[in-house]
């Protein structure tokens, strides 16, 4: 019994890690632009596909280069995937969101644009690569280690550690650095930011780099853990991560991180006690109750303005 509890906790931590990593990206972009970037889940999907191509390439499976050893592939894949996925996020910002911002479009239109961008990424992928699923090559040793009756793999632990480190890193950036201050300043009053000599667009691009880069990292880890990729894999997990960010208190880094883990826990624990078909029903009912009690989310604060 106690083993199964620990097993579930471990599983929940791992599952929650993916939600957290994706929720952090929602949170960063929302925090700065007050834009719910609904394409974010699909950026995660693109990150997983980029991971697939980068890893396959580095393993030498395309025959373009002699294959590298697995550790080297992983060491190169992490930065490459993050940079390339960040590039996708920045491209979206450039071609879809920035023109609207320049014209002073209402936020509603930008959100709709984000939804459309997500659909374009999904269907673009479908058109480009076809509907067949991709199998992600095995990279790490998947031997199951059993400690006190709890099964774990190195990968499972690594996912959790990466999520925690990513959170600490992003928090540090937002709280301690000048560009982090600028990000917070934009969320409060975009008008006054250029008056500080700060190029607003640069800060926004940086935000998309961070959010999409970590979505790419999540994509890589997800593909390594669940090695079957399809173009719609980002849709549901993206929605759920968005809900996690809202429950945590959207705009708060801590909230996104906690919300991701909370959702992971709720889902895993529901499945532990109820038929798995009830998972989403019960999980989201619980989240609804939390929002009902605290509409701003766990760590969110109602926005106050002073004139």
């Amino acid at each position, binding site marked *: 019994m106690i083993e199964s509890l620990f097993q579930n906790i471990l599983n929940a931590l791992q599952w929650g890690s993916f939600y957290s990593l994706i929720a952090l990206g929602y949170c960063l972009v929302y925090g700065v632009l007050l834009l719910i970037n609904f394409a974010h889940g699909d950026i995660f999907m693109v990150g997983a596909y980029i991971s697939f191509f980068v890893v396959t390439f580095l393993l030498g499976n395309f025959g373009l280069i002699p294959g590298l050893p697995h550790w080297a592939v992983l060491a190169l894949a992490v930065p490459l995937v993050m940079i390339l996925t960040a590039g996708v996020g920045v491209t979206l910002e450039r071609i879809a969101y920035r023109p609207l911002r320049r014209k002073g479009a209402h936020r509603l239109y930008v959100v709709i644009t984000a939804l459309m961008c997500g659909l374009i990424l999904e269907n673009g992928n479908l058109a480009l690569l076809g509907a067949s699923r991709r199998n992600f090559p095995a990279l790490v040793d998947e031997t199951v280690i059993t400690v006190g009756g709890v099964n774990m793999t190195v990968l499972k632990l690594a996912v959790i550690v990466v999520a925690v480190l990513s959170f600490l890193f992003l928090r540090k950036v937002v709280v301690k650095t000048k560009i982090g201050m600028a990000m917070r300043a934009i969320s409060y009053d975009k008008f006054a930011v250029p008056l500080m*000599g700060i190029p607003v667009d640069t800060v926004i691009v940086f935000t998309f780099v961070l959010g999409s880069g970590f979505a790419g990292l999540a994509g890589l880890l997800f593909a390594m853990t669940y090695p079957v990729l399809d173009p719609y894999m980002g849709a549901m997990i993206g929605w759920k991560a968005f809900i996690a960010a809202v429950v945590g208190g959207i705009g708060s880094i801590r909230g996104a991180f906690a919300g991701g883990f909370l959702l992971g826990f709720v889902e895993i624990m529901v499945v532990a006690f109820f038929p798995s078909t009830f998972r989403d029903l019960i999980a989201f009912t619980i989240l609804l109750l939390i929002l009902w009690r605290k509409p701003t989310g766990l760590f969110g604060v109602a926005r106050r303005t002073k004139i």
Partner: protein
Amino acid sequence: MLSVENLHVRYGNIEALHGVSFTLERGEIVTLIGANGAGKTTTLHSIMRLPPPEAPRVTQGDIRFEGASILGVEPHDVVRRLGIGLVPEGRRIFGNLTVQENLTLATYARKDDSAAVQQDLGRVFELFPRLKERQRQLADSLSGGEQQMLAVGRALMSRCEVILLDEPSMGLAPLLMFDMFRTLKHLNEEGLTILVVEQNAKVALDFAHRGYVMDTGAIVAEGTSAELRADPSVKKAYLGG
């Protein structure tokens, strides 16, 4: 130093400024006075090159700084390259940042070392001791007067040589207002060039060397502060008879 020449600007189909011209020389305090809606804020936002919807489109005329047109300059470069700062109407401090963060943020673009920044921070705290006391507080928690100090402090931290003030007296108790103008006068004596926009014409003319009177998007009178104070039409319209 700064010259606005025959400036016409539009918000959509509505022309907000119809040929505004004035100059600001180094070391001066100049005021733009006029009623609400005369185009004073629009003029300042145009100088700062703020993007729409805050600033309208310039359709005719020019804004020159040290002789060169600045119409193509990005707003953040107006601050960091040209050294023109704006203390906006309503102050627009970042309430979710601490006082110290607000001041640090203004040094974002500065390339000089942290010692120089620290020195400037010390100077701002010397000018506004209240800010020093409250440096770790969220700026949201400051009183209106303190927020105004912070807004001016911010402009100083970005090492501006010219500072544009939009309605600095608004919402301040008379005593605080006089304090603020005294501090600004002191900064001017140290070399800061000031362009101040005010609805409170009396206070503005006491403070400035020269002034321009704006009405519905155009300059209708200009002169030294003494001349404007003596002008019967200015007296009647803006100084309460």
